[in-house]
């Protein structure tokens, strides 16, 4: 930790020089907060199996003062989904990559870099940037605020509906070990609707990259937002994300986080249902093997009455993989007619893989329906036998059952072409084929 605070103190000017003053404005306070809190300690209640101080101990170089790579990112990193007509954007090493877009978004919508949002919409920026991260985030969010240089902003004014999904391709491509910090800020005013797909990739090179991401999502009244995150990075990647969502009344949010290939991943989701009738669907799928680790931590706060949340996380583990799921649902006093469901299902495929699960309910109101369920086990032997008895070879039967196991999560995706692409990627993943982005073509 000291290496980072020292670096901050000695390189303030460099850190500040390529980002907007409004963004820099938050760094000092974040520095104080980080100096006080530090990285979350492994073994503490919400970080029992995540050792962030240890993972970030190596001397990663900061990716600061650069401007991404040159060229057309669409050609360099061809990540597309067949049949998906999307608005495509790129963030490379934490910097938004400006390029010519093929499709124009409706007028008034902002989709672009954090720095240019600060420049063009200073009031909105000041109103929303770092609001949730500062209030709710742990040391990791403060760390991100200290060093972040750029990121992506999506701002949709009142009642504008964007039907086609927006795709943000997030790429780590450095030729030395680097620590990348990026930011996502989503603001949907009342009645707005959009779908965002974030594909997280790492370039094929030898360097190790660690990334921290802070996403703040403000979803207005009657607004609807779908947030899909697909991680297909490399075994050398460390990904630490903190996602904060604030929902106003009658808003609807779907979050679907899929980890297909990774090194170490920790995803935090904290969702506040602040307005009545708000609804959240939170899905997660992790397919991990070898020495991969995935730790998803979710906190859904039902702060007011008549809200609904539905949570489903599934893990398929093999070899020496480690999976962890921490899910917390809190229901505040007076949050009547709350409905909150939480489910965690895990398949363990080897003697050496480990799964830690901790679904929690903290309820302070009586007129509620809350439940959680968790299972960890193996594929059903009778189902396997049934398939084999019908002439399907064992390996194919295992694949079919695992594939079926992932289906509930994939069904939560509301973009048909993405759903098809995910099915194909999952199939490839189970069959051990190359699933790198370039392989998509």
């Amino acid at each position, binding site marked *: 930790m000291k290496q980072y605070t020292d670096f901050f103190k000695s390189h303030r000017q460099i850190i500040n020089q390529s980002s907007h003053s409004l963004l820099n404005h938050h760094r000092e306070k974040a520095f104080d907060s980080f100096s006080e809190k530090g990285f979350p300690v492994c073994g503490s209640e919400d970080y029992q199996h995540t050792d962030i101080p240890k993972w970030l101990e190596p001397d990663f170089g900061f990716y600061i003062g650069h401007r991404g790579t040159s060229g057309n990112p669409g050609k360099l990193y061809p990540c597309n989904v067949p049949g998906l007509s999307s608005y495509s954007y790129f963030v490379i090493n934490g910097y938004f990559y400006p390029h010519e877009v093929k499709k124009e978004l409706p007028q008034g919508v902002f989709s672009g870099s954090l720095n240019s949002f600060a420049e063009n919409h200073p009031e909105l920026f000041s109103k929303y940037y770092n609001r949730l991260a500062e209030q709710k985030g742990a040391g990791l969010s403060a760390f991100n605020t200290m060093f972040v240089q750029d990121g992506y902003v999506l701002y949709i004014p009142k009642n504008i509906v964007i039907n086609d999904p927006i795709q943000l391709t997030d790429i780590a491509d450095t030729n030395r070990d680097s620590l990348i910090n990026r930011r996502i800020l989503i603001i949907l005013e009342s009645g707005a609707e959009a779908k965002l797909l974030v594909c997280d990739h790492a370039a094929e090179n030898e360097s190790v990259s660690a990334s921290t991401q802070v996403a703040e999502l403000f979803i207005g009244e009657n607004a609807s937002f779908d947030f899909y995150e697909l991680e297909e990075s490399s075994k050398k990647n460390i990904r630490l994300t903190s996602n904060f969502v604030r929902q106003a009344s009658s808003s609807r949010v779907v979050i679907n986080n899929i980890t297909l290939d990774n090194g170490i991943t920790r995803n935090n989701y904290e969702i506040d249902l602040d307005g009545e009738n708000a609804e959240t669907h939170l899905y997660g799928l992790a397919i991990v093997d070898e020495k991969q680790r995935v730790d998803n931590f979710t906190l859904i706060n039902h702060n007011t009455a008549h809200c609904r949340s539905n949570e489903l996380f599934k893990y398929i583990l093999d070899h020496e993989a480690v999976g962890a799921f921490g899910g917390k649902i809190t229901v505040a006093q007076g949050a009547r007619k709350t409905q909150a469901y939480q489910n965690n299902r895990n398949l363990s495929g080897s003697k050496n893989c480990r799964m830690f699960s901790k679904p929690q309910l903290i309820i302070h109101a009586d007129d509620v329906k809350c*439940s959680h369920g*968790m299972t960890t086990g193996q594929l059903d032997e009778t189902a396997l036998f049934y398939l084999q008895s019908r002439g399907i070879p064992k390996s194919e039967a295992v694949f079919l059952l695992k594939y079926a196991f992932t289906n509930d999560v994939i069904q939560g995706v509301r973009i048909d072409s993405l759903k098809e692409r995910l099915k194909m990627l999952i199939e490839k993943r189970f069959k051990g084929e190359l699933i790198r982005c370039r392989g998509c073509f």
Partner: protein
Amino acid sequence: MSENSTDILDELTNKDYEYGFVTDIHTEFIPKGINENVIRLISRKKNEPEWLLDFRLQAYRHWTTLKMPEWAYLNIPPIDYQDIIYYAAPQTRKDSRNLSEEVLNTFDKLGIPLHERRIPSGIAVDAVMDSVSVATTFREPLAEKGIIFCSFGEAVRNHPDLVKKYLGSVVSYRDNFFAALNSAVFSDGSFVYIPKGVRCPMELSTYFRINAMNTGQFERTLIVADDESYVSYLEGCTAPMRDENQLHAAIVEIIVLERAEVKYSTVQNWYPGDSNGKGGIYNFVTKRAWCKGESSKISWTQVETGSAITWKYPSCILSGNRSSGEFYSVAVTNNYQQADTGTKMIHIGKNTKSRIVSKGISAGKSQNSYRGLVKIASEADNARNHSQCDSLLLSDTCGAHTFPYMDIHNDTGIVEHEATTSKISEDQLFYCNQRGIPTEEAIGLIVNGYAKEVLNKLPMEFAVEAQKLLQISLEGSVG
């Protein structure tokens, strides 16, 4: 909330705690506070051997290095450990035929007759008042079968080898803050040894009573079930109504050897404090069973209705192959009570099984939490666990929380957990009303039905008491 059920609520929440009386009995105290001299004094008073004093001192020294745990979902006011009397002995002779009138009357009033001829059903009782065991009944008929059932102090004197062998083997003094405190200052408790192949012919029980003021109760229970034996053990407890909080920090250790079975049932009815949250017992207990032998079995059943604060996790270490553990719990909290209770199932042996059924019922302004760990070690092939934790909320100001932890290190294990939280549905009440059942009875019916799965596991003698307790503690709070 209907007017009718509001009336019941008022009536029952204002109901006095039945066992809140104080017995005026001459009691010997030692000075307040804890230090090595106090521990030496307790040990001297109990004529303990040197090895036990060493054990206590080691525990004390370790305790001084520890901090009070803060992870539980409890709001525990600071406890001044120097303001507690660690030893209080009512002056009475240790012989049930010659007990002082006050002691006999006290236990009679609690419904625990200490005269063997007056006990209708076969339950042997070890009655512990404050820091000493005042009587143990049916010792002779049990001794004929080779069963040892006596106070802990007697066991140390008469069966030192057994005590030395098993004391601290399941709950080490290093285990946690309260285990260390208890190991340092424990005063009395019960000791049970069931020899090989013996099925204990009657229920054994310990009744704990706190009587003296400003004291804490720190008892220790040690049960050893040798190969192919069986015992059903009951535990009950009450305390007087006082405005001050009193501390109860106990340890229960159970060793279950090959093909043996132990059934341990608790009806915990310590004084819960008044309706404003004043007074009540702090119940910080470490209970653990070690299924050491193959095919051994432990079953915990608890009905928790009392205590201002409960911190209790009866656990099972399933290290014998094919061993099994069960945990059935009903925890009721009302007014300002707080409970953080649950279990730990540690699967180490192969083909081990465990089952958890926990029913939480919260009313008033209370907080009721289930906290449980299911751990499948990497060598525990084919382990199986099912946990079910339900919470019933009876007021809009109470809290019901669930904190399960599942650590799975083996791919052949199957672990399932499910939990629900809800209130009594209007539909169910309406259905009962519509069939001519008044709201009061309907509520009783639904709550009893909700807890039935656990109450059914209690021995007959306790089931009746537990059902009555449930009615007193919560029926009226249903809204």
